[in-house]
């Protein structure tokens, strides 16, 4: 195929990966999965159990089981990624200045990484003291 772009802008318009397509698909799938994960979460913790009986022991017991660790980790990861990508879309749409956009995104991504680290640390590495 002959190269037809004459200027940098045109070359940029024509160069591409499928990354945005994958994000688009991810948003749809993670959105649907999150709905069921969160309904399940609320069902188990607010309807099957009385909210007032939930205390540290209850949570500690639940989170010492691998299944619930994974369940909550999935909510954490999908929620953060879905939310962060949604915010990325919003920032792309609303911040006109390229430098401001860059730095706002940098702060957003750092915050997401920090929240994921914090969340997964408490999920996976915390000793809940349940034998």
């Amino acid at each position, binding site marked *: 195929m002959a190269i037809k772009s004459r200027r940098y*802008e*045109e070359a940029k318009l*024509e*160069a*591409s990966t*499928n990354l945005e397509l994958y994000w688009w698909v991810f948003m749809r799938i993670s959105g649907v999965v999150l709905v069921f994960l969160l309904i399940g979460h609320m069902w188990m913790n607010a309807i099957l159990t009385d909210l007032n009986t939930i205390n540290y022991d209850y949570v500690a017991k639940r989170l010492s089981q691998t299944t619930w660790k994974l369940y909550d980790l999935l909510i954490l990861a999908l929620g953060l990624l879905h939310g962060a990508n949604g915010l990325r879309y919003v920032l792309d*749409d609303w911040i006109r200045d390229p430098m401001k956009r860059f730095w706002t995104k940098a702060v957003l991504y750092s915050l997401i990484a920090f929240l994921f680290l914090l969340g997964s640390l408490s999920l996976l590495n915390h000793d809940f003291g349940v034998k």
Partner: protein
Amino acid sequence: MQVTLKILRFDPQKDQRPHWETYQVEAEPWDRVLDLLHKVKWDQDGTLAFRRSCGHGICGSDAMLINGKNRLACKTLVKDLGSVITVEPIRGLPVEKDLIVDMEPFFAAYRAVKPYLINDEPPPQRERLQSPEERERFDQGTKCILCASCTTSCPVFWVNGTYIGPAAIVQAHRFLFDSRDRGKRERFKALGSGSGVWRCRTAYNCTEACPREIPVTQLIEEVKRAILMDRF
């Protein structure tokens, strides 16, 4: 009837920024906005600059923001607007003078989707045949006159101008869904990139703005689906 015509004017040699100027024009209800602009330019202020060619809604030269909506000045009648009419240049492209904008970014996006038939197969004895149904499939896109009404009404395009824009996607659609075309993958490069179809937020401004009544947003969604189906 007497019409108050407010035009957003800008002279790069004199002005720092665009400013409004008001003209009183005698008009008939069935006059077009283009006629009013002519009256101003011919009788009141010859420095008014705007672009027009055929004056019959085919060349796509006189797209403007009229009473807050992108339309063709030659297809918009005074009776549908009332006695106060505002005219501004289309948004998102650099203004050169008054109502004339630099269309180059718009046409760069147009070129990026390769708006011509791509088919390297040896041509048949006579023409490449197509059934009426196959022709119908891409009929909407053929109506486009490249006036830029859709692209310059798109809020995503206004932000930083990196979005390829609805018009280019409509042009791509016209060839993607043509049974004779084989250039799908080449076009997907421009359409699937970060500045391509995935930036569309379905605001529907383009569909409302199109003077040729092309269902632009629907065509964009069809292109999204085509890329998706091609990949998965």
